[in-house]
């Protein structure tokens, strides 16, 4: 589906005659064509998973991380143009730190999500080009429980129970909806997230990919961390075994 802007798409400062801002839609396309990213909120925490494309075998596996910490208790998973992702990560880290310095308490996640959303929105006004990235903010604390927010290139931000962005988001969302999220423990969430990423991959097109996952929950005491390599590997193997088992059952 390619709708040509023909002249109304040169700057984010221009509306089209039917009330659309094409530059923002093109920025959204940058996210839609990037590696799949999913986030699922369970009872006691949130798991995020990104299907990272490894551009070269010479890179270290930890390079160009797609899951990072905006603060000790808030995780940020990023999809889309990597430099834009890094720029937003720096902004989020700065805002969270400023809040901590000013109020001497960790920044509430919904406020950080709002701040990020407003920042992203400013770039859709025509001063500069929009950000070509989407961000999942995840956190868990005793008072509010697990929280998950998505910030899109248009500046839109909603709270979610689970969501997917990127290449295979439609298939991923369908898989997510089959799960009963509130019944799953953190271990099960990690395994299911890995399974969904592997299931929706397209073997012919998605080569040289690696799953990067992050979690935050009661078991980490509210601190967001990258899931340790061995846990991710174990989840991937469980997932591959499960997928094979399902295929054999279908036959």
């Amino acid at each position: 589906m390619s709708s040509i802007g023909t002249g109304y798409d040169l700057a984010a400062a221009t509306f089209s005659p039917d009330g659309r801002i094409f530059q923002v839609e093109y920025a959204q396309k940058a996210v839609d064509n990037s590696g799949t990213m999913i986030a699922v909120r369970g009872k006691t925490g949130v798991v995020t998973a990104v299907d990272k494309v490894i551009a070269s075998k010479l890179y270290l596996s930890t390079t160009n991380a797609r899951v990072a910490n905006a603060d000790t208790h808030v995780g940020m998973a990023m999809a889309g143009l990597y430099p834009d992702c890094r720029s937003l990560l720096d902004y989020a880290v700065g805002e969270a730190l400023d809040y901590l310095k000013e109020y001497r308490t960790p920044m509430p996640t919904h406020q950080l999500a709002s701040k990020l959303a407003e920042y992203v929105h400013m770039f859709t006004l025509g001063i500069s080009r929009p950000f070509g990235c989407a961000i999942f903010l995840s956190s868990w604390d005793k008072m509010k429980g697990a929280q998950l927010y998505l910030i899109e290139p248009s500046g839109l931000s909603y709270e979610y129970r689970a969501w997917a962005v990127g290449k295979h988001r439609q298939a991923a969302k369908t898989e997510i909806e089959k799960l009963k999220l509130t019944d799953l423990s953190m271990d099960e969430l990690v395994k299911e997230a890995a399974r969904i990423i592997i299931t929706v991959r397209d073997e012919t097109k998605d080569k040289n990919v690696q799953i990067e996952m992050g979690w935050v929950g009661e078991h980490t005491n509210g601190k967001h961390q990258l899931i340790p390599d061995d846990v991710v590997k174990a989840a991937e193997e469980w997932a591959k075994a499960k997928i094979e088992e399902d295929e054999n059952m279908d036959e």
Partner: protein
Amino acid sequence: MILNVCLQDKLVVANSVTSVHTLTPNIGAVMVGMIPDSKFQVKRAQLEAAKWKYQNGCDMTADQLARRMADINQFYTQNAEMRSLGCAMLMIAYDEETGPQIYRIDPAGYFRGMRAVGLGVKQQAANSFLEKKFKKKSDFTYDETVQLALECLQSALGVDLKSGEVEVAVVTKSDTSFRKLADEAVDFHLNAIAERD
């Protein structure tokens, strides 16, 4: 003042989606249009009202705030640095001197006080409905006002509404603070309309 909420995906946490915003404790607004632009404009309105109160020591009235927001919108139409925002604002308040107020502020920088107004996709139908009702009488009680608004939305959209699909917000003489009605209150009014028919 009511707004029809378009139902989101079931994975979205429903009460994080709202278009009803409090600008000051006594002035509220409903935004129609692009959501990020709406949030931007609401933040600006909240700022302007707070700045006024800080500088002048008294509350900004709805008409003053409406004029200020309209002037800001006009600025965007004449200056190249920023595009106009793709959203319109319906502002309501109960002024102790002039009574109930409704203002409609649009991206062109045009603002007007209204007795009744509809905004959005079916605004023609909504406005015609309201004009017909207002021709006959204009002194509605609180219950009649809420039910008139709900009826107008139902008739313009052509669907029967449920309390989960609408957000209703009010200001009244007895309590000038801007507040949202709970689902039960909305149900009460929807049932009253249904029973009347």
